[in-house]
């Protein structure tokens, strides 16, 4: 028996999503973006909505998301993705519209756009990657950086009196009448990956039900920004991020 006896359709247990391109991702080894991209691609493929989906990429590491998912994309100015998505969805109500944003983009410079798109109950999906740091610009403090966390702009650790507190924006968004589904997930192990995929799927399905905005936070690692290896980064996330950013659904109606 050689390898060609094994490579048969009936033996196939896993394949790359047809919605993912063959471009080599620029993300660092250990980064959560690659996994979440894959999950979005799988959901789009499984729902058979590749021709009905418009993505909005942010400014940050995932600015190049449009190189990896084979759908129509708009690249937004920093923080403005929910404003773009608002117009795309209102002008094209038959399309699935999602934004993919990091913590700096969504919870700092784009806080107003995020809050108001959610408060209007735009029938869009927002995928929020929270790794508590600015990755692309080299590891500066994010709005979600934990107290005590060392970053390039908090070299002695984040101090509340100097930098304020980490922003639990997902909890805030769950309070708004306009959101229908608000959840916080992670992708550091297979069980978490499966839960996150189910959450993304539910969010996409919601967007055709006129129920309001679906918001999926994924607590993520940035081992380059955190300056620790991938496995340790997962551990650091579980020990430090999860207590402050507890996982689970905050709202599902």
């Amino acid at each position: 028996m050689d390898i060609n006896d094994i490579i048969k359709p009936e033996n196939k247990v896993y394949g790359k999503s047809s919605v993912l391109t063959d471009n080599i991702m620029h993300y660092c080894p250990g980064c959560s973006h690659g996994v979440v991209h894959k999950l979005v691609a799988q959901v789009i493929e499984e729902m058979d909505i590749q021709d009905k989906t418009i993505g909005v990429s942010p400014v940050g590491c995932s600015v190049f998301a449009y190189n990896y998912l084979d759908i129509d994309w708009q690249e937004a100015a920093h923080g403005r993705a929910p404003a773009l998505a608002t117009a795309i969805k209102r002008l094209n109500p038959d399309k699935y519209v999602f934004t993919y944003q990091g913590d700096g983009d969504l919870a700092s410079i784009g806080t107003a756009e995020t809050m108001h798109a959610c408060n209007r109950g735009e029938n869009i999906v927002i995928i929020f990657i929270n790794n508590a740091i600015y990755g692309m610009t080299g590891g500066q403090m994010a709005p979600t950086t934990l107290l005590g966390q060392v970053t390039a702009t908090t070299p002695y650790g984040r101090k509340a009196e100097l930098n304020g507190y980490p922003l639990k924006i997902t909890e805030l968004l769950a309070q708004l009448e306009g959101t229908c589904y608000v959840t916080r997930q992670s992708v550091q192990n297979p069980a978490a990956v499966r839960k996150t995929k189910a959450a993304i799927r539910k969010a996409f399905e919601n967007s055709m039900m006129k129920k309001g905005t679906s918001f999926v936070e994924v607590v993520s690692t940035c081992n380059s920004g955190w300056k620790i290896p991938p496995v340790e980064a997962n551990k650091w996330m579980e020990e430090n991020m999860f207590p402050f950013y507890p996982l689970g659904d905050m709202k599902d109606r």
Partner: protein
Amino acid sequence: MAEKVLMKGNEAIAYAAINCGADGYFGYPITPQSEVMETLMKEKPWESTGMVVLQAESETASINMVYGGAACGKKVMTSSSSPGISLMCEGLTYLAGAELPCLVVNVMRGGPGLGTIQPSQGDYFQATKGGGHGDYRLIVLAPASVQDMYDFVDEAFELAFKYRNPALILADGVIGQMMEKVEFRPKKARRTDEEVRQQCDSWATLGKPKTRERNVITSLALDPVVMENFNIKLQKKYADIEANEVRYSTYKTEDAEHLIVAFGCMSRICENVVDMARENGIKLGLLRPITLFPFPKKQIDALVPQLKSIMSVELNAGQMVEDVQLVAAGRVPVGFYGRQGGVVPNPDEIYEAFLKFIK
């Protein structure tokens, strides 16, 4: 006989948008242009033509909604006044950088800063030289009447789509607030989804069918060679616009020995100044740039040999005068008269300034 209605310039913008088949308006209230969105909300075009009208949380959001809609090949627009346009400049450079067609209306008020709600033309530099970062241009139309406000909406959309570039109607508080008779033009239906696809499928985000590559709307290119080539392409487009889209009008320039250059409401006032000069035997003419970009360089240049002077008259501290000076290139004296901060001059004081200048 076409219907004629008495209305404000701002209201004319709203009716023109509905009647020319606009797909969406996104705005934020600011004096002196709030009637644009108020009129749209009152008319409820989403029930008649299907046009989307949305009050955004800020001018920043408005212009980015315009970006999102424009990137779908839709005819989308916003309107604001000077401080709001400053906020929109980020979006404008992204729109220009992503080569998206859209319409922005600026009903200018006096600045700088929060300034005043009274009329001004203080945003000429911002409109024609940039405002946002990078080498980009907007197609800029300057209305001088309420009818212009109506007509320029459709014209600006046509230009915006022809060149895939943002177009700006640069009005001022006078034109926005004054009431005049407007003739409504024949209505255009909104394009169907199929028509939008036919027109824009090569670039717009309409959902990727299996039959084409994905469309990506972005202004990002990290490779400097790629970015330079893109900039060169943009500059070529702007040169085409300059070659083909200049609009202007003249008043008594055939035998003119002196010329006033004025745009928007000031061109209306300066027609009176021309008549006053002519009554006193002075051969004064008026050239009104209708497009501020492209600026009517050749048309002013052609008049220079017959002129003894040119005066630019503006509601600012002297902005367009710099473009006039560039054309005159020292061949003829170029003067300036302007009022600032929301003060609108009357013909007498302009005429007096003109006499002083040519003495």
